Each structure stands twice: as structure tokens, then as C-alpha cells.
């Protein structure tokens, strides 16, 4: 299944290597994301009960995953009672066909859409485009990549890989802004005018869903720009597309998730808008499309089940040393970075076999994840699976097998660290070889003469 015909199909490592050719750009990308990671840290540290929030969120989601059948039917019954129309889609193709049918029923050819990673996952834009529907993405970052004929490279920051001068040039071509103007304030203003016209005239608006509440049948959408609200409240028809894992049991659980989401994503205390859609406005339609697309299968894979807890905050990407230095497009899947590397092989193991290897298994993703998904352990599990299936990529298979063996043996791990430091000082060529793909295009940092544990052992006596 090729849901992203416009995305390249080379292996991650090759695409990452291409991304790494422009060193200044990679450094800039790396630093920008790290800066966002630091903002997240500051926001998290400002809440003393942060770890309690993470654990509680994780536990609520564990409840959801283990009661999904009943919560889904409860949600459906409530949503219907509220006057919403509920659709069920087994896969991406059915999701796209449902959306298209709603558009046909309403005789609409032009629509606005706010950010929805689910519709990216389903390739909705391409599908509707092929059927003659004009889709305007209204999140600024998404509009930028759409004008450029690309897809988002990050789930929260869709055009994080674009420089303002390039956006200025893109807007000059498409929105006729003056050539050479790359001022973010000015360009955002131009986009505001361009998109207002769309909001005011489009009759159907598609949104994603951040949370769906079983108890009340409402869907909650979080944005900073206000584009989901501008789209839906000015349209006659709102289509909300959601993966079935977006459920939470009760409204009060939002208290936990709204405290975690924006802080984890960008370091904000909350998104500007947290909109609760319970009933359609009088005389208007609210459609909710519940999409499986591999989720019920993932639910049955014990080792990967927890990946369904994801609230799509993007923190694992911002912190990932591989993501930061390879860019979102190198993952060839709508959800990139560490969590995408767990979700993608569930859909197509063969096609995405290289992704679980695009990680150093450093565990930073697991440490920042607001719902405590054991991301790096699942990546390691995927490697085992792929290895068994004979799908592990060649060069990496050897070193990663070694890594797995080492990680399971803490004492050896410490010893190997010592050995590696010696090797790095005496024979750096042994580390910078083709068995170690992450050292491509970069010099290794000078190894510390002592590891932390050696230093600690020596200094605690003093």
C-alpha cells in the first residue's frame, strides 16, 4: 500500500545522508528542535506534579486500551444522541471514501482542513485531489508545505525544515508578496489574508481530533492558530476524523491531558484554543469518522500496544538525536521520529523495516513522553521482530544485534563503554566505519577521558 505517492521510497539512512550534506542546515534544524525540547523541559519542571501527571495519563490510556470496545460503543451512542453522524472506517481507503461521499452529498468541491495527522496517514489530500476536490490546509505550517507540494516533516511543526527566506520566496510565487520579504510577521499576515478568504467561503471543514470523550460523545480539538475553529464555525459541515485510540473515558480526564499536551509539545502552558464540540450548531452537520487502519491489530500486539497511547505531542521527535539530524521526511511516513518508527511497521513491516533501526536507543524519547510510552524498548522489540522475519537491513543488523545483547547486560555495557572510549582515542577509524551508520558526515566528539561512573567512584571518596 502506498499511501504517500509523493514521498520517496529510499531507505531512511540514505535520505538522512542526503539531509546531512548541508551541514549548516542540519545544525540549524538540530538546534531549533533542541531549543523546543528545552522549552518543554522548563514547562515540565514548572509543574511539581509532572511525573504524577504522566503516570496518571498513561494509566488512563491503559484503561482505554483495555476497555476500548465498550468505550467506542459508548462514545458512538452519546455522539448520536448529540446529533452527530458517526462513520466507521476499517482502513485509509474507506476513510477517504467516506469523506468524499460526504462532500458529494453536500455538492462541495472546495474545502478547508485543519491539522490532522490521521488524514495525513490516510493520504486524504492526494485522494481528494485525484477526485477533483480542492483541499486547503489552513494551519500555517501545513499550508506552507502544501504550497510547496510537500507533506509535513513534523507532526506539530509541519515546516520545521523550511527557512524563512524560502518561505518568503514561496509566498512571493503563490501569494504575490514582495520578492525578498522574509519577515515572519509580514508573511504570517499575508497568509492570514489569504486563508481568511478560504474560511469565509468554504462550506465544509475537516479537522482532526485530539481527544474524544466516551462519556459525553464530544470531540476536543486543540490549536494555537484558531484555524480549526475558523474553519468549522464558518462552514455548514464539520467532518472530524479520528483514530479510535483518541478516546478518553470522561471529561474530567481532560484535566490531566490538557496539562501535558502543550507543555510537552512546545512548552506552552496550554494551546490557545481547546475547543469542545458536543453538538452541531443549529442547522449544521457534524460528522465523526472513526478510523481503525491497523490500530485494532496493534492493540493485539502486546509489545507494541502502548504505542496507541500516543497523544501526538511531538516531544519524542524534538529530543531524538537521530530525528534532529535526519529530518522528518527521511522516515517516509506521516508520523516521523521515534513513535512513527513504531507505528509505521505495524502498517507495513516490509516497507518500513528500516525505521526501528533509525535510533540510537538512547531512551530520551521515553523520558519525555507525556504518556510514558516505552518508545525505545518498543523500537528494540521491532528490531527483534524484523530480525526474525529476515527483514532487518543488512549493515545495521550486525551492530544492532550487538547493541541488543549489550543493553541486556548492564555490567558488560559499562565495560563496553570503557572499551569504546579507549577505541575512540586510539583508533577512531574503527568507530567511523560503515557498520556504524550514525557517524556518517560527522566527526565524533572527543571522548571524555573518564566516564561519569568512573569519575563518581573516584570523587565520592574525596
Amino acid at each position, binding site marked *: 500500500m502506498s499511501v504517500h505517492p509523493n514521498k520517496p521510497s529510499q531507505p531512511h539512512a540514505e535520505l538522512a545522508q542526503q539531509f546531512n550534506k548541508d551541514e549548516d542546515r542540519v545544525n540549524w534544524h538540530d538546534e531549533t528542535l533542541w531549543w523546543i525540547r528545552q522549552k518543554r523541559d522548563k514547562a515540565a519542571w514548572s509543574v511539581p*506534579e509532572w511525573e504524577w501527571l504522566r503516570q496518571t495519563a498513561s494509566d488512563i490510556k491503559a484503561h482505554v486500551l483495555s476497555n476500548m470496545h465498550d468505550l*467506542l460503543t459508548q462514545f458512538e451512542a452519546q455522539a448520536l444522541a448529540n446529533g452527530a453522524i458517526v462513520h466507521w*472506517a476499517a482502513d485509509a481507503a474507506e476513510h477517504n471514501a467516506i469523506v468524499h461521499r460526504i462532500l458529494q452529498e453536500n455538492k462541495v468541491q472546495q474545502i478547508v482542513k485543519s491539522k490532522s495527522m490521521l488524514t495525513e496517514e490516510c493520504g486524504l489530500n492526494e485522494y481528494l485531489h485525484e477526485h477533483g476536490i480542492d483541499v486547503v490546509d489552513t494551519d500555517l505550517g501545513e499550508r506552507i508545505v502544501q504550497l510547496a507540494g510537500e507533506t509535513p516533516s513534523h507532526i506539530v511543526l509541519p515546516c520545521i525544515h*523550511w527557512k524563512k527566506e524560502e518561505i518568503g520566496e514561496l509566498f512571493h510565487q503563490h501569494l504575490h508578496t514582495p520578492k525578498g520579504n522574509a519577515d515572519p510577521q509580514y508573511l504570517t*499576515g499575508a497568509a492570514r489574508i489569504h486563508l*481568511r478568504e478560504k474560511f469565509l467561503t468554504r462550506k465544509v471543514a475537516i479537522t482532526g481530533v485530539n481527544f474524544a470523550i466516551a462519556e459525553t460523545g464530544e470531540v476536543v480539538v486543540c490549536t494555537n492558530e484558531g484555524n480549526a475553529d475558523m474553519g468549522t464555525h464558518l462552514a455548514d459541515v464539520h467532518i472530524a476524523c479520528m483514530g479510535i485510540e483518541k478516546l478518553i473515558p470522561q471529561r*474530567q480526564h481532560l484535566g490531566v491531558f490538557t496539562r501535558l499536551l502543550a507543555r510537552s509539545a512546545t512548552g506552552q502552558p*496550554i494551546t490557545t*484554543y481547546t475547543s469542545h464540540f458536543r*453538538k452541531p450548531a443549529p442547522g449544521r452537520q457534524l460528522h465523526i469518522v472513526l478510523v481503525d487502519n491497523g490500530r485494532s491489530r496493534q492493540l493485539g500486539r502486546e509489545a507494541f500496544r502502548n504505542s496507541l497511547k500516543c497523544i501526538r505531542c511531538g516531544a519524542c521527535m524534538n529530543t531524538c538525536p537521530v530525528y534532529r539530524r535526519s529530518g522528518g521526511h527521511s522516515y517516509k511516513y506521516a508520523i516521523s521520529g521515534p513513535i512513527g518508527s513504531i507505528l509505521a511497521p505495524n502498517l507495513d513491516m516490509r516497507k518500513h523495516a528500516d525505521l526501528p533501526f533509525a535510533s540510537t536507543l538512547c531512551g530520551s524519547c521515553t523520558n519525555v513522553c507525556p504518556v510514558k510510552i516505552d518508545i525505545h524498548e518498543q523500537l528494540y522489540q521491532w528490531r527483534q521482530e524484523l530480525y526474525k522475519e529476515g527483514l532487518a537491513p543488512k549493515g545495521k543488523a550486525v551492530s544492532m544485534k550487538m547493541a541488543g545483547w549489550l543493553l541486556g547486560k548492564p555490567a558488560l555495557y559499562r565495560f563496553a563503554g570503557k572499551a569504546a572510549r579507549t577505541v575512540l582515542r586510539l583508533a577512531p577509524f574503527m568507530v567511523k566505519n560503515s557498520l556504524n551508520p550514525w557517524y556518517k558526515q560527522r566527526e565524533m566528539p572527543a571522548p571524555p577521558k573518564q566516564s561519569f561512573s568512573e569519575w563518581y567512584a573516584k570523587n565520592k571518596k574525596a
Partner: protein
Amino acid sequence: MSSRSKILAQVKANQPASVALPGLELPAHAAQWDALQKFVETLSGIGGRVIRILPGEDVTATLLHAFDANSNILNVSATVQGFQALPDAAFEEPALLQNVDIALMDAAFGVAENGAVWVTEAQYKLRALPFICQHLAVLLPQQELVAHMHNAYQKVQAIGQYDFGVFIAGPSKTADIEQSLVLGAHGPKTMTVFLLP
């Protein structure tokens, strides 16, 4: 078999044994704030403006003073009288509101930890209003502040059911162009909260 039954059957077959819901009591070391101070600090920090109305102060005069004299003000607040009313035609065609400079409405309560206010459609009448206006002005009694989102949702429950409700925290904004923060993405360019005594 319909997709609905197929999905539900597979979910049922694959879901693990039920895990109980956790309790939501905050731990003893949870943050505590002076709600008023924290609210003002946080909302100002995310680009909002807070104006405190003193006892006996003329709210209308302060409102007028806070905005450009040439701007039109559409008022759906029950707290102050005057200004323009919501035109009936806007219910049919909300796009008519595109030239509203300032929308003035009451908020039910505010949240100290993040500077958000809770407003519902029943309160402000027309869903599109707080988003389509160029500037948003909100009236909020200063005793209606809760510490954090857990209390906020308790309060939401206590107020009662809504068709549409939203937490709004500051002006609409984006940082999609090289992470430079720009206030005024698609919704209001500014948000002012008038704290009533």
C-alpha cells in the same frame, strides 16, 4: 460484515484484560499558587492583556479607553450594556462578522496555571464570534479563578452541559515560520481580559 462490526469485533478480540482507571487526587507536592497573581502573570506571558477594574470604576469608560476610538465593538456580554448587538443575520451567515473589530463577552471562569478562560456558546450566542473578531475582549469576575485544569473541569461539570465550549488562552498565534512567535494567526490579534472586582 460492516466495518463497524469488524472493527469492534477485532478490538474486542485484541484488547487486554481490563485495567482500572486511576484516581485523580493530586499528590501532596502539587503546585499551589496565588490564583490571581498566577493568572495575570501567565496570561501576560502568553501575549494576553489583563486590565483590572477597581470597585466603583466605570467599566464602560475603561473599556472604551482600552481600545482604539475608531473600532466597532460587538457586545454579547450580560455584564455591560450598550455597543452593537449581534445581528440576527449572522446566525445564518456567520461570515458577516468578519469586520467586527472587537467582540466583548463574559467568561464563566479563568484558569490560573495557563491563563485560559472558559466560554460557552450559550453564553456568547454564536460559535464563530470569538474567533472571527479582530480583537477579543472578555469580562471575568476575579473571584472566578481556579488553580488548574483539574478544578477547571470540575467547574465545567458544575456549570452544566454545553453544545460548544472552549478554553481560550491569549490571542491566536503561530510560530511556524522559523519558530518566530507571531500574534494574530487566524483568530484575534489581541486578547484583553477585564478582571471585575
